[in-house]
């Protein structure tokens, strides 16, 4: 049955192949899959679909005679749901490229399927640095950020800007341990000192005793090696204990502008974090935001949304150059070969292991008195140049690099 279908498809392509570029079934289909109902709905969700649509419009696909279609789905943060959606998309709906996919377990599952089916996977929402490490594939590009970049950016830049003593509040599972280990290594390498660490159960609700230990350590920086609701709760409770007003700074190792928005400046002020993109950084970003926000209920774009825009733009360029979207590996190879250039991330490259390279930024959340407009949340503390922002190619252990 499937073979018959492929044969027909091939026949159709050859039959009218002379006319125009050979896009499978005549359409480039982009599948945006993420969390549209849970924890990550704000930072990815519907906004990523909007960002993808804007990328297609700005690229002028219609004028160039490319038919592009966008579909969206909610993986509910369940790997089996995500896996099912992606398989159906590829096998039945003929989707050519999967975009976004936060939640590392889902992203890793999609990573395998896309490799098997030879399509393209552009990761913006997921953090797992394994995607360009041991689990890298010739079909995947990791666009926006990863855990290594966050740990490195936050650790290094904070130490260099004076935060040289650290105390870690770590979620007690593999992800938290890895984040803590990576950041601590960076801190010590740059001359900082780790005064202590404490592990909290995952998921946690009461952080008071851990926060008191952190406070008593007198460390200048309290590193939050956790994610999602754990980060939100620890920031809230730290604010209740007056930790930031007492002169210590919290450094979130995985947080987004939408988290700051949810917490409010009163609670989040003084928080330090690394991001790949901020809407108020330059004119191009502000202009993009002006178009984006009204479509997403006023939510300002996160770095994940911007990453989706940038990734889709580059994908369309590669497909245009190849005049075909049929072979996922070839498209990704083309994307690695062409330098990236778009209005949100500027010029950059995609490395052999699938890592997109661009600068990262260290931000500090403003005090309520410093904020002049809604969503005016960050002040720039440091810029981490592109060549230092991501894990060096040789250290990732990606099998593609050796060959």
């Amino acid at each position, binding site marked *: 049955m499937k073979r018959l279908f492929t044969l027909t498809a091939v026949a159709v392509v050859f039959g009218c192949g002379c006319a125009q570029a050979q896009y499978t079934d005549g359409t480039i289909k982009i599948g945006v899959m993420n969390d549209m109902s849970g924890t990550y709905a704000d930072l990815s969700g519907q906004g990523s679909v909007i960002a993808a649509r804007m990328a297609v419009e700005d690229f002028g696909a219609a004028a160039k005679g490319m038919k592009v279609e966008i579909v969206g789905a909610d993986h509910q943060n369940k790997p089996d749901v995500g*896996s099912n959606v992606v398989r159906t998309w590829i096998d039945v709906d003929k989707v050519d490229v999967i975009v976004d996919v936060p939640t590392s377990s889902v992203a890793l599952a999609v990573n395998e399927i896309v490799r098997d089916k030879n399509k393209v996977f552009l990761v913006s929402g997921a953090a797992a640095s394994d995607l360009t490490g041991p689990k890298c594939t010739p079909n995947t590009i990791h666009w926006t950020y990863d855990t290594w970049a966050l740990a490195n950016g936050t650790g290094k830049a904070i130490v260099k800007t004076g935060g040289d003593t650290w105390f870690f509040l770590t979620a007690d599972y593999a992800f938290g341990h890895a984040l803590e280990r990576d950041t601590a290594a960076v801190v010590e390498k740059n001359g900082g000192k780790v005064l202590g660490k404490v592990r909290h159960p995952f998921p946690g609700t009461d952080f008071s005793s851990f926060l008191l230990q952190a406070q008593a350590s007198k460390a200048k920086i309290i590193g939050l090696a956790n994610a999602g609701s754990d980060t939100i709760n620890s920031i809230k409770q730290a604010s209740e204990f007056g930790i930031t007003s007492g002169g210590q700074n919290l450094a979130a190792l995985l947080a987004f502008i939408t988290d700051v928005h949810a917490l409010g400046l009163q609670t989040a002020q003084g928080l330090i974090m690394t991001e790949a993109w901020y809407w108020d950084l330059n004119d191009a970003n502000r202009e993009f935001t002006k178009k984006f926000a009204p479509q997403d209920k006023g939510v300002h774009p996160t770095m994940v949304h911007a990453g989706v825009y940038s990734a889709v733009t580059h994908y369309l360029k590669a497909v245009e150059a190849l005049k075909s979207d049929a072979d996922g590996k070839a498209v990704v190879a083309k994307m690695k070969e062409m330098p990236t250039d778009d209005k949100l991330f500027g010029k950059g490259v995609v490395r052999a292991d699938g890592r997109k390279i661009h600068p990262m930024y260290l931000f500090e959340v403003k005090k309520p008195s410093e904020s002049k407009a809604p969503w005016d949340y960050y002040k720039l503390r440091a810029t981490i140049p592109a060549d230092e922002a991501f894990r060096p190619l040789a250290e990732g252990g990606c099998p593609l690099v050796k060959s």
Partner: protein
Amino acid sequence: MQRVAKARGDLALRRHSEAIAFLVMTGLLVVAPTFAYPVFLMKALCFALFACAFNLLIGFVGLLSFGHALFFGWASYIAAHAAKVWGFPPELAILSGAATAAGLGAIVGALAIRRQGIYFAMITLALAQMMYFFAVQAPFTHGEDGIQAVPRGKLFGFIDLADQSNMYIMVLVIFLGCFLLIYRIINSPFGEVLKAIRENEPRAISLGYKSERYKLVAFVLSATFAGVAGATKALVFQLASLTDVDWPMSGEVILMTLVGGLGTLFGPVAGAFFMVTLENYLTTIGQWVFVVQGVIFVVCVLLFRRGIIGELAQVLRVKL
């Protein structure tokens, strides 16, 4: 005369209602891949088996376990680990998953059946959560990332399961086999004792039945079937993750059983297909998934409390 014949026909139909329903179900499942996506069907079948296993306990012994994700999830972890790291063939991977579930079932069951009602539910939940946190921490489960890229392997060494239709046939055979086994258990003298315990435990004890032993055996059986379902699911999706051991999974299986029809033979299957279909087709409507699921649950509880199949059986006046 004609009327009598018709009545007799009706009676025969009634007497064999379960057999007829089974044939209809099997027929549908055999032709289903021609119009539905096989991976989706396999997922539904795994959940159907899971719900049947759960129903064996709540529907026929009256024990509400709130920790069945423990058996489902751990079996999927062990099966995935066995297939990926130890290089087990699929049949052995599934068996090792089922055996793990049986072992865990024996331990949890032995502790939990000493109490009844809400206490029973809470003990199962507590033990399941304990094992969930173990799964979060244990290195071989890879925490949040789960066990990925599990090879499906070759069944009995020569049937390649990477082929979608072979995989579907295997899942279907496992499901139907377990379903018949559950049917056999329910309709055996052992099953009659279970139902007696459900209806009136003191009376069953006074008749000389050691109810605790019966309950324990039923618990272990239920855990084992849940394990088979979990292990099979690990091979279908080629992954095992925290979703399957977490407590919402225990809740979901309760929901499936309730929507389908508690204590009916086919109810859990219908319920599982219904819920999985919902979960699958609602992925495109984004944030409304949970609202829709909630509304359906409320409607179900308010309007047809016997569940889809339970109500159908009532209308047709047959046993299903």
